[in-house]
């Protein structure tokens, strides 16, 4: 049980998955905001739960988090994590309200805009993935939480923690053009359940 052995070809496949999914999501975000969005080369890492908690600025860093579960042929958890400042910029721009702030219990319209943004982005990520792999995926309606990163991400570790003490995460970061070198980075994190890795590799004819 636990995670399968991962070789360099597997690693390339997982990177490509992050690439395809996040590229579509970044394009969707760019269309939505009418802004240029830059995307990094995906990182695929096998890390401990505590390394996972440190990923986006540490367990106590307050972030805006979108989370959904994927069911179907491929199962796992998916997160879209944004620093508060970046989420504020996006939503202020989207709803044309420069007073909007997630820190002061953002307005209903801003919150539902964020929820909808999560819907659109995760939808484009997963449908691109589903087309590429020819696998059925049924995402749950995304949930939204503004809280400590550790508290948000740990829900994605629950399923995995029953079989392993490690997590394989496909991490693609995006940023607004001109803000690439700042801490204003968003993260698409895909955490396939351990049993789903072989499903992915098989779908592409690699054992």
């Amino acid at each position, binding site marked *: 049980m*636990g995670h399968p052995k991962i070789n360099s070809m597997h690693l390339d496949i997982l990177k490509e998955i992050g690439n395809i999914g996040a590229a579509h999501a970044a394009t969707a975000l760019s269309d939505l905001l009418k802004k240029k969005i830059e995307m990094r080369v995906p990182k695929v890492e096998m890390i401990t739960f*505590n390394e996972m*908690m440190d990923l986006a600025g540490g367990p106590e860093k307050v972030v805006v988090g979108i989370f959904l*579960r994927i069911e179907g042929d491929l199962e796992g958890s998916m997160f879209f994590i944004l620093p508060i400042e970046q989420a504020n910029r996006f939503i202020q721009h989207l709803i044309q309200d420069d007073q909007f702030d997630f820190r002061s219990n953002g307005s209903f319209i801003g919150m539902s805009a964020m929820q909808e943004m999560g819907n659109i982005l995760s939808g484009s990520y997963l449908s691109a993935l589903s087309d590429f792999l020819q696998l059925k995926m049924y995402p749950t309606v995304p949930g939204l939480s503004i809280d*400590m990163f*550790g508290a948000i991400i*740990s829900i994605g570790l*629950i399923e995995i923690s*029953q*079989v392993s003490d490690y997590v394989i995460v496909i991490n693609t970061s995006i940023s607004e053009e001109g803000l690439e070198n700042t801490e204003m980075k968003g993260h698409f994190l895909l955490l396939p359940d351990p049993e789903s890795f072989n499903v992915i590799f098989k779908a592409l004819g690699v054992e």
Partner: protein
Amino acid sequence: MFASKEGKVVKVGIAQMDVVKSPDTIRTSGLGSCVGVVLYDETKKVAGLVHIMLPDSSLSRSETINCAKFADTGIQGLLEMLLVEGAQKYRLKAKIAGGAQMFQFASDKNMMRIGPRNVEAVKKVLKELGIPLIAEDTGGNSGRTIEFDPDTSKLMIRTVNKGVSEI
């Protein structure tokens, strides 16, 4: 949180546990559905903290078990560590925090209710071991960072929206 103390702060990660003696304090960050369980001996001023993720080790489908991950094995393991440090079992008391539901889903999947299930499991194990639960801050839908001071037996709890409180 306890800024003016001379002791150090021992940090406990997810699915980990540790023990401290006064003047040191012990803390864990970013509890969501996980539960932080503190066991302490007021006389010896020694305390332990375990950051558990799952209610029961029977959920494990792996060959090796990290006992700090589960309520049953985690609390038992912490108890043994405390006895080695000179704590007396009959004097041990507990304070717990966490077990939130970070996302609301219309799914009936058990995983989504993991926070409340963790809290129930912790209480059951404490009862079986005869360790009284003195205070708790559990449930809700906020993440928590907690820190325990064995000198005062106070557990500080910080959340994003409600600031710092003490139990």
